[in-house]
């Protein structure tokens, strides 16, 4: 099964790294990828966005079209973001326990939120440990199944399920 995005832009065009095809691909995924990176590493979202696409250019020849393109793309972004977070604060990537990240509500996002409740949800989410933020974003914003999330983050299904439950519980505690 070839992913819809790959079918649409043409496998051959992408493999040959046709600039127009890659440009269309960037346009198609720009907001979703940016949102994901904003959730995971808001302070470096722009840099990681660029690095992700450069990595796509390097790797697209090796992309297996039977693999889901969304998972492949987000896995690249995940790996780059995790490297960034490790460099910044190695402890923040431990399985969350007492982990606390500085609360960074992305300015651009805050401005878009008209309702107070939405702002509260976003703000509370931004205070969660990065692994919870990522899991919640992939499940609810990207609408990925647990199996797809596991593929993106390279973790067992049970771990993803646990992060999702703990993330939701932590989010609700913060909102309340």
């Amino acid at each position, binding site marked *: 099964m070839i992913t819809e995005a790959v079918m649409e832009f043409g496998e051959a065009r992408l493999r040959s*790294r046709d*600039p127009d095809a*890659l*440009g269309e691909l*960037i*346009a198609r995924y*720009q*907001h*979703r*990828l*940016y*949102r994901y990176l*904003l959730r995971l590493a808001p302070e470096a979202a*722009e840099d990681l*966005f*660029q690095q992700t*696409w*450069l990595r796509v*250019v*390097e790797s697209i020849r090796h992309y297996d079209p039977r693999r889901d393109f969304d998972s492949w793309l987000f896995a690249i972004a995940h790996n780059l973001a995790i490297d960034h977070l490790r460099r910044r604060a190695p402890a923040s990537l431990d399985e969350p326990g007492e982990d606390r990240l500085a609360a960074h509500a*992305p300015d*651009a*996002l805050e401005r*878009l*939120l008209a309702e107070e*409740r*939405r702002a509260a*949800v*976003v703000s509370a*989410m931004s205070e969660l440990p990065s692994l919870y933020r990522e899991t*919640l974003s992939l*499940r*609810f*914003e990207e*609408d990925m199944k*647990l199996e797809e999330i596991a593929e993106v983050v390279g973790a067992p299904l049970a771990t993803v*399920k646990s992060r*999702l*439950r703990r993330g*939701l*519980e932590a*989010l*609700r505690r913060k*909102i309340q």
Partner: protein
Amino acid sequence: MREHQSIRELLALGAAGALDPDEERRLRAHVAICEDCAAELRSWQVLAGELSALPVPQAPPPMVARTRARVEAALRAEAGRRWDDAVLACLALLAWTVNLATWAVWRLIAGGATGLAVIGLTESLMYLTVSTLVAWLTAGVAAVVAGQRRRAVGRSL
């Protein structure tokens, strides 16, 4: 009571649509008879709905434009590297051809028409040694030049 406690732990995942079929079936059966759990599930469903409905932050157009420019630069740089590789391969082929041709011409000059047929071992070994040293030296210089150029391209990306 134990089932009630067990179901409580599934409510958040149930609202997230992350239960396996057996857990989902147990959850449905329980909330049908337990108003507390049904209310708790609705509360989780509200939160799940809010998360799903968060607006998508728009990627800033200048950032996207910069990304496209960097991607295009990377593609151009790689095309340049492929061209360099092709040129180097042609030059290597040319160098070996010239090398062998020179050897043949040298034999003809030194030995006349029968020079090619009479191959002196010492003479040939000396020629081979000198030409190999020259070839390695040239290849080394070319590798250094190519490496510096690649590093310069890498820094520009």
